[in-house]
C-alpha cells in the first residue's frame, strides 16, 4: 500500500520533472527566438543610426559648396555676411540632425564658430581627434568618451573640410559633429519592443583585454562607460559577445544572475550588442505553473496519502481483528485440549523419552488410584502388572520406527487390582526431544463382552449342532452356506450334496416359484415368518415345511447371510386338517341339534299351552258338574254322596294347582330375565300383600304371626321373579309354622365374603338336614299332604329363579327347630 503510494508519488514527481524540463526547453527556445529578433532589430537600428551619422559626415566632407563657404569665411572671418551664412548652416545642421553641437574648427583646432553659439574651446580628446582628422584628411569617429570640458558623454565625428582636387587638396578647417548619446543613441537602446522587467540592452566594446559597457547598466546603477570587466569573466554575455561568437547565449550577468542573451556585432563599428533577460523572468510562468501544479499535486498527494492511510489503517484494523479472533480460537483450542485431556474417559499420560511420567489426566488418577504427584514420580512400566511388565520394552519396540502403536496389556492399580487395557502410544517430537503420549482405555467390559460372545458362540454352536430343528444359512443368492445335522437327518441328504447348491432347487416347482418371489423382496423385509413350502427330501418324499428366516447384514448394510429355521409340519398339518374336519362335522352336528332343540322347544311350548288349556277343561267339567249335582240335586243325594262329590271337587282343584305350578315352572326356563335395580323390601311387602289376599280365608289368624323384615340392600333382579321367590319362601314359612303357637318369621340380609345373603327364617317344623338336597327337587315333599298341603313345586321354582339370576340357594334346618332359606343373587357391577 505504502509502496504503491510512493510509486505513485515518484511517478508524479518524475512526470513533473520531465514536464518541467520540456517546458523549460520550450520556453528557452521561445525566448531565444524573441531575444534574437530584438537583437537583430536593435543591431539594425544602431547600425542604421551610425550609417546615417556617417552619411551626414560624408556629405559635409564631400560638399564643395561647403568647403567654398568655409574658405570664404576663414579667409575673411570678420565679414559678418560670411559669418552669418556659416552660422546659419551650422545651426541648421545641428537642429536638423539633432546634434548636441556643431563646431567649426580651424586647422589649428580652434573653435571658430559653433551652434549653438558660444562654444570657445574643445576638450583635449576632441582636439586630438580633430588633429588626426586634419592630418589624415579622413573623417574620424571618436567613439564614446567623456568630454573633459563638458563632462558629458560625447560621440564626435571630426569631418575635415577639404578644398582643391586630388591629390593637392588642402584642409581648410574642420567640422566637429558632437552627438549626445543620451538623446539620440541611448533611447534607441533603451526602447524595448516587448514588456520585460529584466530585459536589458548593453552596448559594449573591447578595450585591451577588457570589455567596456558603453551605456548605463541600470540594474547595478553603473553609469555609461563606468563599468569595465575582464574579458575572461566567465559566462558574462558581454565578454562572450566581444571575444566569442555572436548568437544565443546562456550566461551569468554582472551581478551573478543567470540570464539568457542574444549577442550581435554592430557592422562597421567596434560595438557589440548584448540583449539579455534574467532567466528567472523567462522561467517565471513556468515557476508559477509549477507552483500551481505543486499545490494541486500536494492536494492530490495529500488526498491520495490520506486515502492510502485510511486503507492502510483499515487493513491494519482488519489484521488486528483477525489476529484477535485467531488468538481467541487458539485459546479455545488450548482450553478444548485441556478439557479433553482432563475429563476424557480414557487415561492420558505424557512421558519423556525414558518413559518417566510427566503428566496425567484426572481419569488416570482415578483409574490407578495414585495421586498426580505420585504418578509423576513413576515410570510407565510401573503401571503394568508384574506379569506383563517384562513385555513392556518388547511391546513398545515398534515405536522406534513408527509414530504410533496400539497394543493391549494389563495394568495394575495402587491396591494391586489389575485390569486389561488397550494402549495407544504415540511419539511426540518437540525441538529434537522425544516424548511419548499414551491414551489408555480400560477394556474390562470389552473383554467381558468378548468372553460373553465366545460363550454365546459356543452355546450357539452346541444348539446348532445338537438341535432337533433344522437350521440352514443361505448366501445372498439363496445358495447353501451351511446346514446343521438335524437338517440333514430330517430331509435325508448328505452334507456334500447340499452345501453350495441353490436352495429353491430342493423345493417343488410351485414352492420354488413362490420362494423366489419372496426372496426377491427379502432384502428389504429382512425376515420370513412361518412361510410354508414343500421340500423334496432325499428319499423323494415331499415334506411340508414351515420356514422362518432372518437376514444378517454386513457393515455397509448389504445382505449377507440369511438364517433359516425349518420345521417339518407335514404331521402337524395333517393333524390340523383332521381337527378342522372334525370341527366342521361338530358344527354341522350342533346346527342339527340346535334345530332339533328349537323344534323341541316349540313343541314344548305348544304342549304347555295345550296342557294349560286342555288339561284344565276336564277339571272344570268335573268340578262344574259335581257342583251342579250337589247343589241342584241336594234332596236326591245322601250325605255320603255329597261327601264324595266334595272329594271329587277337591281333587279337581288340586289337579288344577299342580297344572298351574308346573306351567309356571316350565315357563321360568323360557321367558327372558328382565333385570333392573330392585329394592327388596318393596318386593317383600308386595309378596305379603299377595299372600294375605290368597290365604286370607284359609289363614285368618295373621295376628299370631310375628313378622320382622330387616332393611334389605338394593339388588339387580327381575322384580316379578324375585317376588315369586319371596312369595314361595314366605308362604312356606307361614305354612310350616302354622302349628306353632306363634309363627315367628324373619326376613333379612347379611354380608359374608362380600356376598349379600338374603334369608327367610321361620320357627316352624324344620327338617332333617339329611334331606336338604331333596328340598329343591320338583314334586319333592318332606311332609305329608294331610299335614301341609302343597304341590312340591314351590322350592323348585325358587331354585330355578335364583339359578337364572346366577345366584345360589340353600336351606338350613332342624326338625322342630325351624328352617332358614338363604339365597344370593349375582352381584352386578354397580358403577354408582
Amino acid at each position, binding site marked *: 500500500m505504502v509502496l504503491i503510494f510512493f510509486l505513485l508519488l515518484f511517478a508524479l514527481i518524475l512526470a513533473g520533472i520531465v514536464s518541467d524540463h520540456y517546458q523549460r526547453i520550450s520556453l528557452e527556445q521561445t525566448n531565444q527566438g524573441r531575444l534574437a529578433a530584438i537583437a537583430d532589430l536593435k543591431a539594425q537600428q544602431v547600425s542604421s543610426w551610425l550609417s546615417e551619422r556617417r552619411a551626414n559626415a560624408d556629405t559635409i566632407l564631400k560638399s564643395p559648396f561647403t568647403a567654398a563657404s568655409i574658405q570664404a569665411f576663414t579667409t575673411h572671418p570678420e565679414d559678418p555676411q560670411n559669418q552669418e551664412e556659416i552660422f546659419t548652416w551650422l545651426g541648421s545642421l545641428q537642429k536638423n540632425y539633432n546634434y548636441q553641437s556643431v563646431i567649426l574648427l580651424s586647422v589649428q583646432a580652434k573653435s571658430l564658430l559653433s551652434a549653438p553659439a558660444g562654444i570657445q574651446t574643445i576638450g583635449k580628446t576632441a582636439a586630438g581627434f580633430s588633429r588626426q582628422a586634419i592630418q589624415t584628411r579622413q573623417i574620424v569617429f571618436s567613439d564614446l568618451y567623456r568630454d573633459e570640458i563638458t563632462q558629458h558623454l560625447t560621440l564626435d565625428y571630426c569631418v575635415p573640410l577639404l578644398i582643391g582636387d586630388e591629390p593637392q587638396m588642402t584642409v581648410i578647417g574642420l567640422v566637429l559633429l558632437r552627438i549626445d548619446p543620451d538623446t539620440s543613441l541611448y533611447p534607441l537602446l533603451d526602447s524595448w519592443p516587448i514588456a520585460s522587467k529584466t530585459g536589458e540592452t548593453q552596448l559594449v566594446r573591447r578595450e585591451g583585454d577588457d570589455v567596456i559597457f558603453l551605456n548605463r547598466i541600470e540594474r547595478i546603477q553603473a553609469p555609461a562607460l563606468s563599468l569595465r570587466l575582464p574579458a575572461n569573466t566567465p559566462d558574462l554575455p558581454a565578454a562572450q559577445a566581444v571575444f566569442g561568437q555572436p548568437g544565443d547565449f546562456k550566461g551569468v550577468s554582472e551581478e551573478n544572475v543567470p540570464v539568457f542573451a542574444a549577442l550581435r556585432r554592430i557592422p562597421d563599428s567596434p560595438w557589440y550588442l548584448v540583449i539579455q533577460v534574467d532567466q528567472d523572468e523567462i522561467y517565471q510562468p513556468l515557476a508559477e505553473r509549477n507552483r500551481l501544479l505543486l499545490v494541486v499535486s500536494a492536494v492530490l498527494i495529500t488526498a491520495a496519502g490520506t486515502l492510502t492511510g485510511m486503507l492502510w489503517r483499515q487493513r491494519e484494523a482488519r489484521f488486528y481483528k483477525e489476529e484477535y479472533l485467531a488468538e481467541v480460537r487458539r485459546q479455545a483450542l488450548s482450553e478444548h485440549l485441556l478439557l479433553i485431556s482432563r475429563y476424557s474417559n480414557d487415561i492420558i499420560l505424557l512421558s519423556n523419552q525414558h518413559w518417566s511420567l510427566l503428566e496425567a489426566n484426572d481419569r488416570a488418577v482415578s483409574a490407578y488410584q495414585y495421586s498426580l504427584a505420585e504418578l509423576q514420580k513413576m515410570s510407565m512400566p510401573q503401571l503394568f502388572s508384574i506379569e506383563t511388565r517384562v513385555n513392556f520394552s518388547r511391546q513398545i519396540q515398534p515405536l522406534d520406527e513408527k509414530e504410533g502403536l496400539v497394543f493391549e496389556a494389563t495394568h495394575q492399580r495402587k491396591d494391586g487390582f489389575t485390569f486389561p487395557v488397550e494402549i495407544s502410544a504415540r511419539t511426540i517430537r518437540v525441538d529434537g526431544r522425544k516424548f511419548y503420549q499414551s491414551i489408555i482405555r480400560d477394556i474390562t467390559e470389552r473383554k467381558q463382552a468378548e468372553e460373553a460372545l465366545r460363550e454365546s458362540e459356543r452355546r450357539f454352536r452346541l444348539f446348532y449342532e445338537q438341535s432337533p430343528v433344522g437350521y440352514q444359512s443361505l448366501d445372498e443368492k439363496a445358495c447353501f452356506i451351511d446346514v446343521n445335522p438335524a437338517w440333514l437327518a430330517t430331509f435325508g441328504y448328505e452334507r456334500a450334496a447340499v452345501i453350495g447348491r441353490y436352495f429353491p432347487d430342493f423345493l417343488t416347482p410351485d414352492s420354488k416359484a413362490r420362494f423366489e418371489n419372496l426372496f426377491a423382496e427379502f432384502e428389504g423385509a429382512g425376515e420370513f415368518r412361518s412361510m410354508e413350502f414343500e421340500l423334496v427330501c432325499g428319499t423323494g418324499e415331499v415334506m411340508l415345511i414351515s420356514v422362518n428366516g432372518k437376514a444378517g447384514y454386513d457393515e455397509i448394510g448389504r445382505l449377507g447371510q440369511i438364517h433359516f429355521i425349518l420345521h417339518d409340519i407335514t404331521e402337524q398339518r395333517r393333524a390340523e386338517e383332521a381337527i378342522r374336519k372334525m370341527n366342521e362335522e361338530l358344527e354341522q352336528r350342533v346346527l342339527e341339534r340346535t334345530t332339533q332343540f328349537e323344534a323341541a322347544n316349540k313343541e314344548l311350548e305348544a304342549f304347555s*299351552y295345550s296342557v294349560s288349556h286342555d288339561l284344565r277343561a276336564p277339571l*272344570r267339567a268335573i268340578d262344574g258338574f259335581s257342583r251342579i249335582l250337589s247343589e241342584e240335586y241336594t234332596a236326591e243325594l245322601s250325605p255320603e254322596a255329597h261327601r264324595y262329590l266334595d272329594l271329587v271337587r277337591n281333587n279337581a*282343584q288340586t289337579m*288344577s294347582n299342580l297344572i*298351574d305350578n308346573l306351567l309356571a315352572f316350565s315357563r321360568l326356563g323360557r321367558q327372558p330375565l328382565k333385570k333392573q335395580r330392585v329394592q327388596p323390601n318393596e318386593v317383600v311387602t308386595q309378596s305379603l300383600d299377595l299372600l294375605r289376599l290368597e290365604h286370607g280365608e284359609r289363614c285368618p289368624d295373621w295376628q299370631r304371626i310375628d313378622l320382622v323384615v330387616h332393611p334389605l340392600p338394593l339388588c339387580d333382579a327381575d322384580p316379578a321373579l324375585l317376588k315369586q321367590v319371596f312369595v314361595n319362601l314366605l308362604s312356606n314359612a307361614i305354612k310350616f309354622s302354622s302349628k306353632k303357637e306363634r309363627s315367628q318369621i324373619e326376613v333379612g340380609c347379611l354380608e359374608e365374603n362380600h356376598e349379600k345373603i338374603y334369608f327367610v327364617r321361620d320357627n316352624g317344623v324344620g327338617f332333617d338336614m339329611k334331606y336338604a338336597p331333596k328340598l329343591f327337587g320338583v314334586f319333592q315333599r318332606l311332609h305329608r299332604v294331610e299335614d301341609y298341603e302343597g304341590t312340591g313345586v314351590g322350592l323348585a321354582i325358587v331354585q330355578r329363579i335364583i339359578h337364572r339370576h346366577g345366584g345360589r340357594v340353600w336351606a338350613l334346618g332342624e326338625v322342630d327347630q325351624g328352617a332358614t332359606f338363604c339365597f344370593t343373587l349375582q352381584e352386578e357391577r354397580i358403577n354408582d
Partner: protein
Amino acid sequence: MTDTPVDILLVEDNPNDVELTIHALKSFCPINRIQVARDGVEALEYTFCTGKYMHRSPTIQPRMILLDLKLPRVDGIQVLKRVKSDPRTQGIPVIVLTSSSDEGDVEESYRLGANSYIIKPVDFAEFTHAARILGAYWLELNRSIGM
C-alpha cells in the same frame, strides 16, 4: 235359522264348557237368546251373516260375544281381530273367556280391542260368580250402541 234377537254369542268348542257356561248364565239370560258357535269359522259366519248364516239379518247382532281363544279352524284371536276391525261389528263388546293365563294372550287380546279378559276358573262356583257379574255388567248395566 231364525232372526230372533240374540243377547249372547258364545264361541266355545268344548261342549262341557258350553253346557256349564249356559248353566251359569241361565239365571239372567234365557237360553233361547244364547247363540253358540263351535269354532271360529262359525262365529265369523254368524257375525258377518255368511255361510250357513247368510240369510240372517245383519241388523240383528248379539249384545255381547263370549270368546274362547283356543278354537278349531280359525282361533279366537283371528275372530277378535275380524270383529274389532270391521265397522259393522266393532261396537259389540267381546269378552275373552279362556283357560289360558298366558300373558301373551292377555296382552294380544286387549291390543286387538277385547273389552274384558276372564280366565275360566276350575272352581265352578267361582265361574258361576264371574259369569253372573259379567252378564249383569254387559247386558244390564252397560249401554251398548243402538240401544
